[in-house]
């Protein structure tokens, strides 16, 4: 009984951690640009596929390249980190193609929604073209060296969930420390609060924006790789549902708030995990019911700042 509860809570915290990563990805771009990057879900998928490929996974590419794979796969940790970095770089390309042209023309913020959604669709369809629509399962040896279960306080729990939670926690801690302590983190916060004033103090706001996109994509890629290895790659659209859930978490926690994204992610993950297995169809219903409830009581989200009148 205790064992089952512990496992349930851990499952919830682990998927909550992944939701938090996605929500933080949205938060980084939102805080600097004030818009949602709808391509983030597609980048999540990309991260999953890149991790799979880098670990030497075989693909069929719609039968075009049956059984093809990298001759020498990496082990999980370097593959995951490299996949996250590559996803971050693709995120920079998305910025260049879907955001930069609109910024130059000082377009309506609403238009970014369309271009980023378009960029996301292109990415997902590219994945489908190159990798096929079929699902892939990571080889059983993907996490070789990691025992199946851990003994915690007399209860046996699945270790892959522990790994997920640990990686998410590490990513969140590094990101927070970087924002609080580093020169670029401070500059990013300054640009987020008032880009014009930051520029007048000699800060290149364009470079900070690209940095936000790079990190945002890397976080999504990390999430994709983690879900891929812990569950599977069900298809190129896998990231879309995580992207939507991340969006809900973003609103739940409060737009633009880093602690809000983390708290919202955990709350969402735990709530879903507490839905009994035979009612699992109600998971999303519960998740969005919580979102409605929170927004009714606190329209600016759990930890969102009250909208301050800008001068």
């Amino acid at each position, binding site marked *: 009984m205790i064992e089952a509860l512990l496992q349930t809570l851990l499952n919830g915290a682990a998927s909550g951690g992944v939701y938090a990563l996605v929500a933080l990805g949205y938060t980084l771009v939102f805080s600097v640009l004030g818009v949602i990057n709808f391509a983030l879900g597609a980048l999540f998928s990309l991260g999953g596929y890149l991790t799979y490929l880098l670990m030497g996974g075989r693909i069929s590419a719609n039968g075009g390249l049956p059984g093809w794979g990298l001759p020498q796969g990496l082990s999980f940790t370097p593959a995951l980190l490299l996949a996250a970095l590559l996803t971050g770089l693709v995120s920079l390309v998305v910025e260049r193609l879907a955001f930069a042209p609109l910024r130059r023309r000082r377009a309506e913020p609403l238009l970014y929604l369309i271009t980023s959604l378009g960029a996301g669709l292109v990415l997902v369809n590219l994945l489908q073209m190159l990798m096929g629509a079929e699902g892939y399962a990571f080889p059983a040896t993907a996490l070789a060296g990691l025992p199946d279960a851990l003994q915690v306080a007399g209860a046996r729990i699945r270790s892959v969930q522990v790994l997920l939670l640990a990686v998410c926690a590490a990513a969140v801690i590094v990101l927070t420390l970087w924002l609080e302590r*580093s*020169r670029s983190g*401070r*500059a990013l*916060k*300054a640009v987020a*609060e*008032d880009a*014009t*004033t*930051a*520029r*007048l*103090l*000699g*800060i*290149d*706001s364009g470079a900070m924006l690209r940095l936000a996109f790079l990190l945002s994509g890397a976080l999504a890629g990390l999430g994709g790789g983690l879900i891929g290895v812990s569950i599977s790659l069900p298809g190129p659209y896998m990231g879309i549902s995580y992207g939507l859930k991340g969006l809900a978490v973003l609103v739940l926690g409060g737009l633009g708030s880093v602690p809000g994204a983390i708290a919202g992610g955990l709350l969402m993950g735990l709530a879903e995990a507490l839905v009994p297995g035979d009612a699992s169809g109600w998971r999303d219903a519960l998740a969005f019911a919580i979102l409605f409830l929170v927004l009714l009581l606190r329209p600016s989200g759990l930890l969102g700042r009250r909208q301050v009148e800008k*001068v």
Partner: protein
Amino acid sequence: MTVDPRLAPTGGSAASPLLELDALSCRFGGLVALDQVSFAVQQGEIFGLIGPNGAGKTTLFNLISGLTPASGGQVRWRGEPIGGLGPERINRLGIARTFQNLRLFDSLTLRENVLVGLHRETRAPLVEALSGNAGFRARQAALERRAGELLALFGLDARADDSAANLSYGDRRRLEIARALATGPALLLLDEPAAGMNPAEKDELCALIDRLREQFQLTVLIIEHHVPLMMRLCDRLAVLNFGRRIALGSPEHVRHDPAVIEAYLGGQASAAGERR
């Protein structure tokens, strides 16, 4: 442009002023905010800009600092045209400014506000920053000290870790100047720095600006409505009215300029008359 190598070490050619506005114009649709304004600011000067509300003073600051493109004319910095450069490039050339309606980073502490100004000096190779080696830590400590010193200059060091949002109005003004100074400017643009201060604070600010000029070898271009303060503080003044420069010269000269009395002081007198 070639510069005689013997002149180069003195920084720019001796002939060109630090900042030069050449027939600068700015139109917003049909409204002419600035109409062919020209003047030059010499190295080390405290140069005042006065004029009634809506005369175009802040617009002029926006043009110099790169926020608003000019519709005509040119801004030259040490003899080189800088029109069309972005605000961050212009700041890096050595021009910093403050705002009439304060623009602090309210989510940051006082120290962090100043550290954002020190951004360019904090450049550290990524590897060093990640490994946190001794050189990096020493430089971090030096930066924190610099930020502390700048805050101390304005009597704000005791509250360095407070949120900027909690400061009184006068202290917010002082913090904004400290942050601008942190970028290491040669020219400081102050937009109504004494607004909202009481007479004693105004006197203090005056003395401080004078001291900053000495200590940082600053040149100051200042907008302020308080005419007696400007007469006392400035080496030279330009007077704007309806976007045109109507007078230029020493405080004594400007005070007795008939155009100024007519358009500026006279305008106020007649406005007072209307109220009566």
